[in-house]
């Protein structure tokens, strides 16, 4: 009798354990995405989310991941509250979503220091987080902020554009971008102008630009500022006199829609392009157009790769988030088919990847979009990796 009951108990225990294990396997992993969905820049976070969801769907793991999405409203304070609430109340172990560097700086260092979690940035790549402030639990699947500026500096050299005029809004990101350009540009800077943040009328600055008679202008005007500047630049009749160079932030398909033909012939630096000849990219671009009936932007591509990177890591740990060190190690292998082709994480957990120069053109359907003009960098490592103590 005691024998029998012991066996029964053991059987029951085994059964319990088995169901617990089964339940654990079926329990989806929570991923928290606090991103920018409102304000004029709201489409950035929207595209990251769409790309992310598409990747889950195409990988057939949509039911293994619960994606919790919140809008930070481009406000560091709100972002701090929302991320901490997700981690503390909802028990989220994998966070993502930061679009803007100021939001990233306010949230990410605190999160990875105070909690046992992983943070994967799908866009923001501020210098401090790539350099001295790098962290084993923080990954960036997009780029380091300076990359797109650096490639344009190199491109200007190659194209023999000797005299270049530089323009950016008067704030940290603007100065960083100009710095990135000058890191590689070897010619003469004939003007360096910092305008008011969110300035709308550039007539005066453009008149000065024309008077300086440069070979090219490099400008960092993300979002609406980019639309305003490009339209006014073209309206001033400068488009065929001065070569226009910029980072991809002014040239996603949403902005190009608002600029129209005025942007044709502009060059911009990016790590991704819709025409990149990579199998995974075709799957992504076709899937995105079919699902959302719009052209994907680089933000959608980054959201897609962020999801792929996270899923690849989770598959290696058998969908367990119990051991975060193991998950981070799995993440670092970057064992996923990136839409950018070759992709690896450097010592600072930022991408080592090719950076391209894209050209704005009008495609067969009359849509103004980007295509690759040339590859600027092979397996580019960002400028701050050396300052990071991680190996």
């Amino acid at each position, binding site marked *: 009798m005691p024998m029998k009951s012991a066996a029964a108990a053991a059987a029951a225990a085994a059964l319990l354990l088995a169901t617990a294990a089964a339940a654990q396997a079926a329990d989806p992993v929570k991923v928290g995405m606090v991103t920018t969905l409102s304000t004029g820049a709201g489409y950035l976070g929207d595209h990251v989310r769409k790309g992310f969801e598409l990747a889950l769907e195409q990988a057939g793991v949509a039911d293994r991941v619960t994606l919790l999405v919140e809008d930070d409203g481009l406000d560091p304070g709100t972002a701090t509250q929302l991320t901490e609430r997700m981690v503390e109340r909802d028990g989220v172990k994998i966070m993502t979503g930061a679009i803007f560097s100021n939001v990233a700086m306010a949230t990410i260092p605190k999160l990875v220091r105070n909690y046992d979690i992983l943070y994967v940035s799908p866009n923001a790549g501020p210098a401090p987080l790539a350099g001295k402030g790098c962290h084993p639990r923080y990954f960036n699947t997009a780029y380091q902020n300076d990359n797109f500026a650096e490639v344009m500096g190199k491109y200007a050299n190659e194209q023999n554009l000797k005299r270049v005029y530089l323009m950016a809004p008067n704030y940290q990101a603007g100065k960083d971008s100009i710095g990135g350009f000058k890191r590689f540009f070897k010619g003469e800077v004939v003007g360096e102008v*910092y305008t008011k943040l969110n*300035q709308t009328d550039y007539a005066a600055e453009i008149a000065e630009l024309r008077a300086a008679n440069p070979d090219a202008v490099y400008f960092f005007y993300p979002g609406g500022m980019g639309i305003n500047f490009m339209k006014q630049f073209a309206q001033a009749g400068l488009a065929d006199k001065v070569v226009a160079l910029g980072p991809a932030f002014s040239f996603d398909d949403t902005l190009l829609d608002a600029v129209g033909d005025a942007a044709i012939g502009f060059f911009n630096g990016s790590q991704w392009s819709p025409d990149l000849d990579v199998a995974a990219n075709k799957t992504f671009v076709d899937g995105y157009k079919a699902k959302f009936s719009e052209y994907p932007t680089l933000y959608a591509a980054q959201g897609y790769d962020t999801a792929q990177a996270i899923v690849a890591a989770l598959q290696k740990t058998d969908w367990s988030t119990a051991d975060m060190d193991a998950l981070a190690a799995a993440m670092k292998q970057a064992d996923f088919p990136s839409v950018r082709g070759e992709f690896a994480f450097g010592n600072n957990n930022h991408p080592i990847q090719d950076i391209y120069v894209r050209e704005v053109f009008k495609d067969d359907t009359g849509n103004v979009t980007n295509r690759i003009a040339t590859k600027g960098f092979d397996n580019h490592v960002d400028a701050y990796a050396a300052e990071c103590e991680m190996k």
Partner: protein
Amino acid sequence: MLLFLEQLLNGVQLSVTLLLMASGLTLVFGIMNLLNLAHGSLFMVGAYVAAWTTGVSGSWLLGLVAGAAAAFVTGIVIELVVMRRLYARDHLDQVLATFGLILFFNELVRLLWGIRPMRLDVPEALGGFVEIVPGAPYPLYRLAVIAAGAAVMLALAWLVQGTRVGMRIRAGSVDREMIGALGVDIGRLYTLVFALGALLAGLAGVLAGPFLAIQSGMGEPILILAFVVVVIGGIGSLKGAVAGSLLVGITDTLGRVYLPKITDAGPALSSMLIFLVMAVVLAVFPTGLYGRKS
């Protein structure tokens, strides 16, 4: 020197947009004693409707008319539904309510037209250049904006100074109770003044549309400048709005160009410049250049 002339022209062009905004703001503030933060939303409504109409119909002129008309109608609706309730309240309540309107309109355009910015191109007939300054082709459209703005302001001056309605508007800005007592339907007068201000803001939005990203919240940066204009010019004074716009538009433009050449702190200084001008003007003329002495 020639470049300086061109920059002066750029300053005047900015002034014209400011003037269209500020004249409505100052009329509403002066006559109805109403602080309307949502004036920038009417600018946005004008630009959005013009961009949409032009896109659908292919006619820029139709877009211009539709944009201005939409702002006018929106003005009437806002006045009847919201502003009416605010005349008797103090300015803080008005700020709160009209700030709410800003959020409402920013969200409304996003619901109607999506988060993608819209596009309004320069009308084809005005796509050329004029060489006012030799060697520096000036966009014809910017000149047209200056001309259109000046014409609208002359018409407004005639309306206010030369017609019976204008007389009532002026009387209303001096003594509201008295013209009510004299049998003028003050409710209707207020609706008219408010809608007129809205029309001008909408027109400013359409005219500035080809320079700008037409997106949710586009009216706020220009609204801040327009308030500075109203304060400098003196609340309620059209003459003040003209003087204030020219002062702000030209100072801002020249400051942006020349201050950075003098000092490294130029970019920071130039964004403060118009507020410094405002402070100086208020120190000398506490009620603004053409404000009524209280």
